[in-house]
Structure formats: structure tokens, C-alpha cells
């Protein structure tokens, strides 16, 4: 209680110090939440893309489309367990360039057999999975359902009509039959449709000059290949490239390495926040040093009545820690609240970029604690070494 009274007694100074720390921890929380968000996305990407080989068309045809006729020759490559068609196209055509943050909303087709092979598992939160025989149905990722505020049984037009849509833009109503559990990664921003619907949408997304020349039932965006147990997927990708003409199989390692950017972003974000916290630490040191000077009479009295140096040191250390912790809790709470608000506001423009996790809470409060202890050491030592004789005479 004495600590709280001491903090309350120097209200302005301590409020300013606590505010400084709160701002630092707020910055850490926001940048950390952003880093956590990207980390979760990258983790999902790594989990998914490290377990399969993505095969695209390498011929002169329209980029982004591959013929399903390539599946058979790929399937025959030694080491291939299964080659499956995959389709992915923008759910908000024309919006991807304007939204650099977050995963773009994507309409996808994933072959049901992938569930037996992929490491990135999904589960239904509401409703049911797609049924292959049915058309006009969609299963939405958690964020997408939140973004469009739709529930199971609602209808959603896909793709989403952009504000400046071309006259020939078409979309179709889909009935929402299921919503996935939140994964914090790729599936959250997907609208999964059946093969026929996906092929139709893929065809419609092609340029008019190309669109009419292709059979939609032979189209996919890429072919996803899973290897047999124990197969080296990088080598398998090389074998596919060597033995199947007109395709480009990307090594899983190359995919995963492209996510290094994410780690760099995290490091920069955390580094920036640490600078802000360092500023907070300087404030704590300053406040506590002034407190030692202000309260040297009190310290001397305590020493007079039997306090040892470590008693005094611990008291000042605890006070510095308490100041930092109060600032940390406030900073984290405000930061988490702000992240939730920004995410809520950004959801309508597909900009869900924060993820406040338990780990982030521990890191933020741990930093606040460490800051308090670290910044409190010098003032605590000074307080502990104070000469009671001089202090008692000083006032």
C-alpha cells in the first residue's frame, strides 16, 4: 500500500512517467500484434506450402491457368502420391493492389482429397462442408464471414462487385453452407466453392479474348502435388520439371524461403517498439532518481529505524517496477483495444492486420516488468547507499 501512496503522492510526475511507459508498451503491443498476425499467416503458409508442390503452367498460354490434362503425366512421376487441381482467384477483383496488409480475400477450390494429405487442417465452426455434387454453395473462412457479416443460410454474391466494375462484370449468388473455425492464416480469407463453380468463375475472370477459347471444365489455377511418404519434395519438383513438359513445379523450400520477409518485418517492428520502451525506461530512471532526492529524509528515517541497505533498495526497486507495470498494463490494454478497433474498422476493406495473443501479452507485460526492474536498479542502489547522517541534516 505504501508504494501506491508514494506513487499517488507525486501524481503529475508519476502520471507522466506511467504515460511514457504506456505509450512504449502500446507501441510494442500494436507492432507486436501486427507481427503476430503476419507470423501466424506465414506459419500457415509454411505449414501448407512445405507439404506440397505447386505446379503452374509454364507454356505460352494465359498465366494463372493450367490445363487439367497435366495431372495424368504428373501423377506418373515416381514419388508422386497424388496430383490435385486447385483454383484460386480474387474474391474482390481490382482491390488487391490497394490493400497491402492482410491476406487478400480469395475464392478457392480445394480438392476434398487434399484433407488426407495437407498439414494445414481446417474445421467447420458453423454449418457443414461443401458437397461435391452441389453447385452454388460456399464455405467461408472466419474473417471473410465476419467481413461480409453473413451467417450460414445467407446468400453472398461472388466475386464481390468492385465500385468501378466493367460493364461485362458478372457475379453469382452463393448460399453460405458453412463457416470455418478461425485459423489466423490462409483459410480465414477464403471462400471455398465446388469445382464446377470455381472453374466457371475462373473462366469468367479471364480476358474476353481468351475466355471463349477455353473449356472451363479443363481449367485449374495450379496443380497441387503431394509426395509419397518420405519423398524429398524439392527433388520431386525437379523431377516433375524434367519429365513433364510445359509445367513449372516450384520447390517447397523456395516457397518457404520467400516468407523470410515476414521474419524481417517482425524484427523491425519489435525493434521499433523496443526503442519506444527504452524511452520509457529513461523516464522511470529519471522519476525514481528524483524520488530518491525528494525522499532522502524518508530514506534516512527508515535507515535510522533499522532498515538495511537492501530494504531500501528493494522498496525503490518495487516502486519502479510497480510504475512500469501499471504503465505496461495500461499500454497493453489500450493497445489491445486499439488493435481490436482498428481490425473492426479495417475488416470492411479487408485489412485485418492485428492478432493479440497470450504470447504477446506475456511479452508486453514481461518487458514492462523488466523495464521496471532494469530502470529501478540505479535509483535503488543510490537510495540504498544514501548517507543517513547527511540526509538527516539536509532538511
Amino acid at each position, binding site marked *: 500500500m505504501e508504494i501506491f501512496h508514494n506513487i499517488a503522492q507525486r501524481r503529475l510526475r508519476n502520471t507522466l512517467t506511467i504515460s511514457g511507459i504506456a505509450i512504449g508498451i502500446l507501441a510494442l503491443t500494436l507492432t507486436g500484434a501486427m507481427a503476430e498476425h503476419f507470423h501466424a499467416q506465414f506459419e500457415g503458409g509454411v505449414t501448407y506450402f512445405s507439404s506440397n508442390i505447386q505446379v503452374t503452367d509454364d507454356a505460352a498460354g494465359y498465366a494463372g491457368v493450367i490445363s487439367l490434362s497435366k495431372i495424368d503425366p504428373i501423377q506418373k512421376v515416381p514419388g508422386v502420391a497424388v496430383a490435385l487441381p486447385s483454383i484460386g482467384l480474387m474474391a474482390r477483383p481490382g482491390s488487391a493492389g490497394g490493400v497491402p496488409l492482410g491476406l487478400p480475400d480469395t475464392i478457392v477450390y480445394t480438392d476434398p482429397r487434399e484433407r488426407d494429405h495437407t498439414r494445414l487442417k481446417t474445421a467447420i465452426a458453423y454449418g457443414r462442408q461443401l458437397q461435391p455434387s452441389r453447385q452454388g454453395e460456399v464455405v467461408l473462412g472466419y474473417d471473410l464471414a465476419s467481413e461480409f457479416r453473413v451467417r450460414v443460410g445467407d446468400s453472398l454474391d461472388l466475386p464481390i462487385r468492385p465500385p468501378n466494375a466493367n460493364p461485362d462484370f458478372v457475379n453469382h449468388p452463393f448460399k453460405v453452407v458453412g463457416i470455418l473455425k478461425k485459423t489466423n492464416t490462409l483459410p480465414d480469407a477464403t471462400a471455398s466453392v465446388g469445382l464446377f463453380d470455381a472453374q466457371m468463375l475462373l473462366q469468367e475472370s479471364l480476358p474476353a479474348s481468351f475466355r471463349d477459347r477455353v473449356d472451363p471444365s479443363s481449367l485449374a489455377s495450379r496443380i497441387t502435388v503431394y509426395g509419397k511418404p518420405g519423398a524429398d519434395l524439392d527433388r520431386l519438383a525437379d523431377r516433375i520439371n524434367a519429365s513433364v513438359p510445359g509445367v513449372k513445379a516450384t520447390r517447397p523450400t523456395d516457397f518457404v524461403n520467400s516468407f523470410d520477409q515476414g521474419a524481417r518485418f517482425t524484427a523491425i517492428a519489435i525493434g521499433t517498439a523496443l526503442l519506444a520502451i527504452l524511452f520509457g525506461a529513461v523516464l522511470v530512471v529519471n522519476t525514481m532518481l528524483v524520488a530518491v532526492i525528494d525522499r532522502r529524509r524518508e530514506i534516512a528515517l*527508515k535507515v*535510522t529505524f*533499522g532498515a538495511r541497505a537492501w530494504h531500501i533498495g528493494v522498496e525503490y526497486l518495487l516502486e519502479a517496477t510497480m510504475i512500469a507495470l501499471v504503465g505496461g498494463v495500461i499500454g497493453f490494454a489500450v493497445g489491445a483495444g486499439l488493435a481490436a478497433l482498428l481490425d473492426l474498422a479495417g475488416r470492411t476493406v479487408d485489412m485485418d492486420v492485428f492478432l493479440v495473443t497470450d504470447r504477446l501479452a506475456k511479452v508486453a507485460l514481461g518487458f514492462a516488468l523488466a523495464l521496471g526492474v532494469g530502470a529501478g536498479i540505479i535509483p535503488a542502489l543510490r537510495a540504498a547507499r544514501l548517507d543517513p*547522517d547527511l540526509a538527516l541534516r539536509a532538511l
Partner: protein
Amino acid sequence: MVAIEVRDLTRKYRQGEANTVQALDSVTLSIDAGEFVSLVGRSGSGKTTFLHCVGLLLRPTSGQVIIDGIDTTALTDGQRTDFRGRRIGFVFRDQNLLPTLTALQNVMLPLRYGGIGRSGRNRARELLDLVGLGDVTHHRPGQLTVGQSQRVAIARALIRAPTLVLADEPTGEVDNETSDELLFIMQQLNRTSGVTFIIATHDVDVATCMDRMIRLSDGQVGADERLRVPRGRLTSLR
């Protein structure tokens, strides 16, 4: 029985780079257990330095301070702190109390560092009752008069049942009436509990209320007078 024996006590302070000030110069005296002693002298005569040396807040440059038969100059810093906490109580001129603590908590403060803690709460209440402050135990210093604060300080000085109480100008900031009350309280405590009191003051009227008056002058004992019949104002209170 001798409570305090001071032998050739010298304390020098460095002042600047080259100058040295001798605050105490070979002071030798002894004080019996249960004595009610005043320490008088002008400002700068060495009263506070003497109290701080005897109170183990300051190490002497040379000489010995023997309390209850223990040569305190031979003790380590930690031992001196423990010794001081257990056996010596202090009352200062002003700003005696911690502003963030209540009167009761201030009285209990020495218990915190003595590892006694809350178990001494009843004793703290008794002492506050004894100094006439049983009804303001939860008041903070800002809500107390200067005289009440000094009485809290007296109660605090006695909380660990010391053998010696050192008071440095305890009546320096109060009017005559309050000064008499404080002196009376200390005298009663001295008489009833046998605690030795050494009270530094520059007020000769206050000093003459004591059993014995030691006069310091330029760091030396100028006079040491036992007052068989105290002459000051306090006589009317007896």
C-alpha cells in the same frame, strides 16, 4: 549501571578539497541507564554529530562508543543497523513521519525492519494511547499538528522497547505549551520504563528540566552538570 560510555570520541568532516572540520574533539563521558540528559550548545557545537555517533548513524573518526557494554565501533555496518533498530529510538526536530503512512503505521515502521511486522500492532496502539493519540491512529501526518506528529515520533521511538532514546531538538518547532507536553511525556516514559533519554536542545529552559545537562562547545564537553533540583518550566508539571 553505565548505559553509554564515550571515549575520546572524535569526528572530523571534510569540507571541500583541503579543509577539515572537527565536529567532535575527544569527547569522553558516560551516561547511566535511565538518565534523563540534555545536550546543549550553540548551533555547530557538535550536538547532532554526537547524537548521530551515539545513534550509530555515523562512524567516529576515532574513539569508542560503548552501549550496554558493547563497543559499537567494532561492529560491521549490518550489525550496527540491527543494534540501532533494536536498542535505540530516535526523535527528530521535524518531518519525523513518513507522509504516506498513518500514525499507527509510522509507529510500527521500526517493526517492519525488525522482522516483527503486524504482531506489534497492539503495542503500537498502547504507545499511541500513552502519548494521548489513541483517537488519531489512522490519521496521516498531514492531518496531525506538529505537536501530535512529535508525539507519534516519541511513540515510534519506543516501539521496539529500546534502552536509549536520542532526541534531536524535539521541541524546536513547537510552542512552549506543546514543548512542555512533549517533555512531560518523555519524562514520564523515562521514569516509568527506565529508558535513557538524551535530548539535544539549544533551549536552556528545556535543558534545565532534565536531570543532567551536558554542554558542548566547539566539539568538546564544556560543562557536565547534574541538576539535583530541576529548575525549568517542567517542575510545574511534576
